[in-house]
């Protein structure tokens, strides 16, 4: 789907996985270095498996969409799956090109996910 396609689909509504889940075991705050926006990520971790993910906060559509797509991809997966995942794959996951000025928006949620490995 294109950027505009996603915007037209979700308009001003919440994206999948947007919101604070009932249960979580880890909370990670991620702030964009370029604009100061920040999202809070909530992970429910059990035996190294990401059982549930949620996020909220103030971010642009691109950062929220990236967060939502990452959440969809990694829900139910082992944290170890993140080892092979990188920035380039995050940009590919989005499915449409973004200009360099906005790559930071897309990559901000990835940083929260990769922090799970620390």
């Amino acid at each position, binding site marked *: 789907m294109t*950027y*505009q396609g996603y*915007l*037209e689909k979700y*308009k*001003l509504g919440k994206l999948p996985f947007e919101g604070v889940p009932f249960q979580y075991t880890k909370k990670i705050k991620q702030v964009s270095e370029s*604009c*100061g*926006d920040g999202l809070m990520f909530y992970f429910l971790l059990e035996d190294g498996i990401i059982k549930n993910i949620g996020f909220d906060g*103030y*971010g*642009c*559509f*691109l950062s929220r969409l990236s967060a939502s797509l990452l959440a969809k991809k990694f829900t139910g997966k082992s944290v170890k799956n993140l080892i092979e995942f990188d920035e380039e794959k995050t940009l590919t996951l989005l499915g449409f090109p973004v*200009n360099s000025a*906005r790559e930071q*928006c897309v990559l901000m949620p990835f940083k929260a996910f990769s922090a799970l490995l620390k």
Partner: protein
Amino acid sequence: MHKNDFPIFKNNKDLVYLDNAATAQKPRVVIDAMNNFYTHDNANVHRGFYGLGEKADALYEDARKTFAKFINAQQEEIVFTKNATEGLNLVAHAWGRTQCKEGDEIVVSLIEHHSNFIPWQLLAKERKLTLRFWKPDRFGVLHIKDLEGLIISRTKAICITYVSNVLGYVVPVEKIKESIGKKNIALIVDAAQAVPHIPVDVQHLQCDFLSFSVHKMYGPTGLGILYIKESRLCEMKPFMVGGGMATEVGLTHAKYLPSSHVFEAGTPPIAEVVGGAEAVRCVTRIGFDAIQKHEHALVEEIFRRFETYSFARVLSPREGNIGVVAFDIQGVHPVRSREGSQRVFASNGIHPHDAASLFAERGVALRAGHHCAMPLHTFLKVPASLRISLGLYNDEKDIDAFFEALNDIKKIFSL
């Protein structure tokens, strides 16, 4: 001047450039002046005893005169810097660190660009000074009456922008000296957003320091102007040291030039200075009366047309606006706050970055974000905003293109 005088518009036919507060486009004559310098007159300044060196010296010092006349200063009071930010940092280092002692106070407004905010914040931390904040009203507008209570016997400086880079209104800087009275308080002015739009006169403002970037007034990047009032020069120590600013260098000591040239260590941006002087001549030739008339008509049109868009919240004041309009796009209609007077909106609006991308896809270049004015955005409780900023080449077609793009955004989000 017309878009035809600016090569960028020939090379980007459909460009709708509304980000002039970030940087303005360059007229052919400025580009030619720099090209001509490199192809005919290039040499370093203040060093060459040969013909080219003398020519470069003459062009460089003539440009200093041009800039001095432009802001009604003396030639010796003009320092060439890299940009407005460097000029303000220079003042904080070279003057602030010499003159401010523990317990002293500095007044800084909340509408400042970070370049006239962080240097003072840093200085205050280092020297244990107290920062006093000149707060605007709830719409972001500063009033002189709110400054008066902040000035005490230990106030050393008042740091203020001449024109808000977000809201586009002119601060009555010329009235500040009345509040200062006879106290020895330095008035430090950031004129970066003023110089492209209004005449700047340091005598009228009665300021001690004034800094601006030349690239926002149709000149090249890499050049700033810092005005230092002659009487303040003896209160300063060198900022950067090196070539061109020392009169005597021994193994354990150095003596420095007693003039403002002491702040131009190293090879300066000579071609930029030559191009910058040409930009001053351009702006002066057109005249600020004509520039203001043209930009005022366009900005009035923008405000008038915004009135019909209930989902767009205009943050800039209409009165006295010089051509910078900040706004954001809301998802819901305005509601009354508990206070009853200020309009507040639900928070699920369109993020300025997303809106700016949609504008960009439609060929409209504008700015989104906090515009390096986070204290103001925090004060206004607006995380980020969109900003249109006009230049002398903008026309009604640009305004039409902007509102057409806004109509598209309205459709996409069913606003």
